């Protein structure tokens, strides 16, 4: 019999722990608290008296207790609010009945889905009775789940509180059509980031736990889910506990459903189904935003957000703003902020916002109070002439958003930054001190784009030939200090959030300003994938794609200059990209252009840029992608200029003249994948790359003048002083991710505009910097 691992695991201790400690210690406390009854149960089999609200054994009259705050989501009479196959589900005797017979069998598991909402952080209590002479009879309760329409109308995937007639699996946490067995009866299990299962503790002998379950009688299942921790009880006994650290596999939200299993005839009944939603903010682990674009794949999706919701987004307000002493260079000023949710500092744990100023400055700001913690100014004396000579496209200074390495030792985070002189710096988030001497990386005065960090290698790419240097993709191997490179690549690679990196470590980016001629080693106006050679550390080309009209794109300067977004979709790793022509491309990272390198999975029609302009029109910046609670994969593209007159979406929000966000769903059709138009946002003054958090799409119009030529001035208009004079101010929007409806806007609160900036979101706060050196923090007041 496995003993509990918690050292002082008395009920009294556990209660003290529960009241005193948040988050991590809550886990230990809940384990202690819940282990106590189980430990007691080891001495004696369960009796009905020990089941909360239970009647005499076998009486069937198990009533729910402690119903405060719960909603009954089954009315006992009808299937209103429930969606299932009427051939197998019905209401009888105030129960939901699922039944198969010899005459009416099931070939695959089917589910009845609750359509009244989703389960995010919640508590669920229900009673079930499984009646079958077949010991293989099986059922379960799905939560935080999604539908799989390709597999059938009522087929679900996700967490399941398992039920079986033999009570071998009853009480375990299973993942239907996913990772399978997670926490078996009697187990407290952690799923690690790499998907491995780690046993944390034993919650009791499975054989003993089994004795608490009444065969062919009513039993109560009770599930508590908070963040990545799920606890299951059966008849008042904790039977399994799951800590899900698998960021790729876990779910934060999803549908609730009841299972009817395929196989020999069986009958399952459910009653007294009670649900309570729980506010997740009290004990949630703070989220991070450690890299531009949110993560190495650049989906711009903050998956850990639980504060801002579509319901409370209207309550967003300006929490603070701070003006920093950075001097702009040309039109560059502040780069996108990075957020460390909890960094250990001398003054205790802090949530820290790191902002880069183009004039070789780093700033750390207390996210709670909006006050400056430290400033770091890099020494660029080796750069020499620092006057503005490169023009608007080559401002000098720092142009690459740094990247922050995840915690290694006790909450320590490392900022990796490339300064004006091309050196790589490693800086402690807590205090701004160097963690390593600056290291040679790339030539000075260039124009690298946002850094990406993957498996101890820092990736970036450069553009515009700034400093007179060729445009290259770079990879700094932190372990060996070798720098791999690939290029040159035409006029460069200038996706706003730098390169996107796949799960296999392939770095993807769009290219522009060059012809497409792979036979001659020319890869302009396409997408390239390069990968570090594990032995030599060189960057090698492994895949490439160019649209079939690449020659046209080159002729009209319609670069593929958008950072792609990479995501998983039904077992495949896909990628979306765009460009100034104003199309979105869907690709499979297995082979992004197919055998001929010219065939993506799907290419949209033109969303905008009907006039075929190289400036002030097209998709600019970066893509975004997220999955909603029903399992639908979304793709978002920001575009400038008027919408194309022929492009339509089911949801539109007025005329678009200056820019908007276009939203698509990834769907299957005719045996292939497509991007189905879903909605177009309201008009925005130069819509910039959006970020997504908890079903809310944050987007902004930069207010920047993007004019590069006028009839009177020709290309002389493309000067900083002219464009600055004609820029206005940025506006931040919160949109409903499902519909594009505007939930909130910053109105006139932001008084300046920005160029080559970006959004960051973490822990209920959204950050945006402007040309005048001000960092704004909007969010829900907590």
């Amino acid at each position: 019999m496995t003993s509990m691992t918690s050292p002082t695991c008395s009920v009294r201790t556990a209660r003290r722990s529960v009241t005193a400690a948040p988050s991590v210690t809550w886990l230990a406390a809940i384990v202690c608290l819940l282990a106590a009854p189980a430990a007691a149960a080891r001495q004696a089999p369960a009796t009905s008296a020990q089941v909360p609200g239970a009647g005499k054994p076998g009486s069937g009259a198990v009533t729910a207790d402690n119903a405060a705050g719960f909603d009954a989501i089954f009315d006992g009479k009808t299937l209103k609010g429930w969606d299932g196959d009427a051939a197998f589900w019905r209401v009888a005797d105030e129960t939901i009945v699922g039944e198969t017979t010899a005459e009416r069998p099931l070939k695959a598991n089917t589910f009845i889905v609750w359509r009244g909402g989703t389960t995010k952080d919640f508590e669920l209590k229900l009673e079930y009775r499984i009646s079958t002479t077949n010991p293989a009879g099986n059922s379960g309760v799905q939560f935080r789940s999604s539908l799989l329409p390709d597999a059938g109308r009522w087929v679900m995937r996700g967490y399941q509180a398992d039920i079986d007639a033999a009570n071998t699996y009853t009480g375990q946490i299973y993942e239907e059509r996913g990772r399978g067995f997670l926490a078996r009866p009697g187990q407290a299990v952690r799923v690690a980031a790499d998907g491995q299962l780690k046993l944390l503790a034993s919650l009791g002998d499975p054989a003993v736990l089994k004795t608490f379950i009444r065969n062919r009688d009513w039993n109560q299942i009770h599930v508590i889910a908070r963040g990545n921790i799920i606890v299951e009880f059966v008849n008042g006994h904790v039977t399994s506990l799951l800590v899900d650290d698998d960021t790729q596999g876990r779910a934060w939200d999803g549908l609730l459903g009841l299972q009817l299993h395929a196989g020999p005839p069986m009958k399952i009944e459910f009653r007294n189904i009670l649900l309570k939603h729980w506010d997740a903010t009290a004990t949630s682990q703070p989220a991070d935003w450690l890299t531009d674009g949110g993560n190495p794949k650049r989906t711009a999706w903050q998956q850990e957000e639980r504060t801002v919701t579509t319901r409370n987004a209207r309550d967003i307000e300006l929490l603070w703003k701070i003006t920093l002493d950075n001097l702009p260079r040309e039109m560059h000023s502040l780069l996108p902020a990075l957020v460390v949710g909890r960094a250990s500092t001398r003054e205790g744990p802090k949530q820290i916002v790191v902002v880069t100023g183009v004039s070789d400055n780093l700033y750390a700001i207390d996210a709670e109070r909006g006050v400056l913690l430290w400033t770091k100014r890099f020494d660029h004396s080796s750069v020499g002439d620092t006057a503005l000579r490169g023009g608007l496209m080559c401002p000098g200074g720092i142009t690459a958003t740094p990247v922050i390495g995840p915690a290694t030792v006790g909450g320590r985070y490392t900022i990796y930054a490339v300064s004006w002189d091309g050196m790589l710096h490693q800086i402690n988030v807590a205090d701004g001190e160097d963690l390593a001497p600056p290291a040679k990386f790339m030539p000075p005065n260039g124009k690298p784009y946002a850094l990406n960090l993957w498996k101890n290698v820092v990736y970036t790419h450069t553009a515009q030939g700034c400093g007179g240097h060729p445009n290259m993709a770079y990879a700094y191997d932190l372990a060996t200090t070798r720098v791999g490179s690939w290029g040159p690549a035409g006029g460069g690679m200038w996706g706003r959030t730098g390169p996107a990196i796949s799960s296999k470590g392939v770095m993807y980016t769009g290219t522009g300003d060059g012809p497409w001629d792979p036979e001659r080693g020319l890869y302009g106006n396409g997408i390239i994938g390069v990968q570090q050679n594990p032995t030599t550390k060189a960057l090698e080309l492994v895949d490439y794609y160019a649209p079939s009209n690449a020659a046209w794109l080159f002729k009209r300067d319609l670069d593929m200059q958008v950072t792609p977004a990479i995501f998983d979709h039904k077992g495949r790793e896909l990628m979306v990209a765009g460009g100034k022509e104003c199309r979105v491309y869907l690709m499979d990272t297995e082979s992004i252009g197919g055998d001929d390198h010219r065939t993506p999975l799907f290419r949209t029609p033109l969303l905008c840029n009907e006039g075929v302009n190289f400036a002030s029109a097209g998709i600019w910046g970066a893509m975004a992608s997220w999955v909603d609670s029903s399992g639908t994969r979304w793709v978002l593209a920001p575009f400038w200029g008027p919408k194309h007159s022929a492009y339509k979406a089911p949801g539109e929000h007025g005329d678009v003249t200056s820019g908007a966000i276009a939203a698509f769903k990834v769907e299957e059709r005719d045996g292939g994948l497509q991007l189905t138009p879903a909605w177009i946002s309201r008009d925005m003054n130069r819509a910039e790359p959006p970020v997504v958090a908890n079903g809310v799409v944050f987007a902004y119009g930069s207010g920047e003048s993007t004019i590069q030529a006028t009839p009177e001035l020709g290309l002389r208009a493309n000067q900083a002083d002219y464009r600055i004079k004609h820029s206005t101010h940025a506006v931040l929007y919160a949109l409903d991710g499902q519909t594009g409806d505007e939930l909130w806007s910053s109105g006139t609160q932001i008084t300046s505009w920005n160029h080559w900036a970006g959004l960051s979101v973490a822990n209920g706060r959204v950050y945006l910097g402007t040309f005048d050196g001000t960092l704004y923090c909007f969010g829900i007041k907590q």
Partner: protein
Amino acid sequence: MRAPGGAAALVCLSGVLVGANPAPAQDWTTAGYDAQRSSWVRADAKISRDSVRAPGFQLLWKVKVDVDSTQSSAVTPPVLLDLVIGHRGFRALGFVGAPSDHVVAIDTDLGRVEWERRLAPGAPSAGGSPACAREITPDFARSTNAAFPAPPGGRGGGRAGQAARSAVGEPGLGAVTLAQLGTRRTAAPSAPPKTPGPHVPPRPFPVVYVLSSDGMLHSLNVMNGADAEAPVPFLPPQSSARGLIVVDDVAYVATVSGCGDAPNGVWALELGSKQVATWRSASAIAGSVGPAIGPDGTVYVTTTTGELVALEPRTLKPRQTHRAGGAGFTSSPVVFEHAASVLIAASARDGRIHLLDSHRLASSKATESLNSASVAAAAVASWAAPDGTRWLLVPRAGAIVAWKVVDHDGVPTIQPGWVSRDMITPLTPIVISGVVFTVSSGEFRAQPSSPAVLYALDATTGKELWNSGTAMTSSARGGLSGGGGQVYVGTNDGTLYAFGFPMEH
């Protein structure tokens, strides 16, 4: 977005300074392509004998440019601008003139009208004959160079870069690009060539020049057709102008009497000082493409009474005159290099082609060659094959006749080359990368006209490579132009056709 200093910017800048940085040789800038009126586009990235012969060359688009066009006043072949970066984007433009001072700029990739306007809206309509109406269709020109365009050096140019490759630096020493920093030199932009004549402040955008029926010379912003500066008086109103050309800050054009008050002669307008010089001819100016400019700036013009006159640039003072006598000239002169000489050729009414040495014009004994059928060729095309053979192409009544220029005892002369298939009143051909393009105009002298047909011929053999079949539905009179992989024909119903190799948009 391309960084400043790249090739695209250079192309744009080449049109920025008025007259100081003439258009690159590859653009069709005036009637007859270049200052010498050769009608020869030296190199093209897409057009060749092999590519035109193979499937693919086809009608790309057609645009009804003007609804008022008639057989007597067709749209002009476009003057071309291969690349300009404007407020609407990167554009390849063609500038077309149509009756009643109608000027149109067309996106030659998409066949879309970029802008259009009517010049001189208050000017009276052309009176008198259809010939006058035709003559005062607006004439376009872009600034060009008196020097011979560069010889072909390969298939097109383009902005091909260096091949990408993989590399890795030494530990601790950064990227290889850092290691190579000391050996890389940033190319400094070259200073623009010196401009003779008074200094004119540079414009931030290219312009195209056009004459309106009221005799004013307009400088139009190529991006939107607006006047870049106030129109300048150049000719008397309602003049019949031919062959507007702008070289070294001077605009030249020929006029023929009988329309308006302009006499026969050549006109020169200094763009800086706005001063106008005139040379008057006793007889009509011959040919359709106006005066030809030699590499030293000398202005050459032919008359219908058989004179070939060399005029000083700017002042138009006569330098030399060759009197051919006989039937008189029908074509404008064409100037070309041959061996170490600069020669001039022109076609005469009796079918002879006169070949003259520009340096000994007055005392030259013209080399003639009898063209068996009488012909009224309005212009002569000239090109040089890669092996150095110089060709002259002349339209006659029912075909194109090609002649070689050869040396006989040290004296250049002409010998027959080839005769094309039959055509109906062919227009002066153009040559692109070894391919002759010519139009069977469909115009009969005594019969109703028929639709025009564009032919592509092997320039060294005359063999037909391709034809446009029934693509065009009207006869043509205005002529051809070409470049950037495309050939343009304007028909008498006001339609502009573009032929070439399709590019997916």
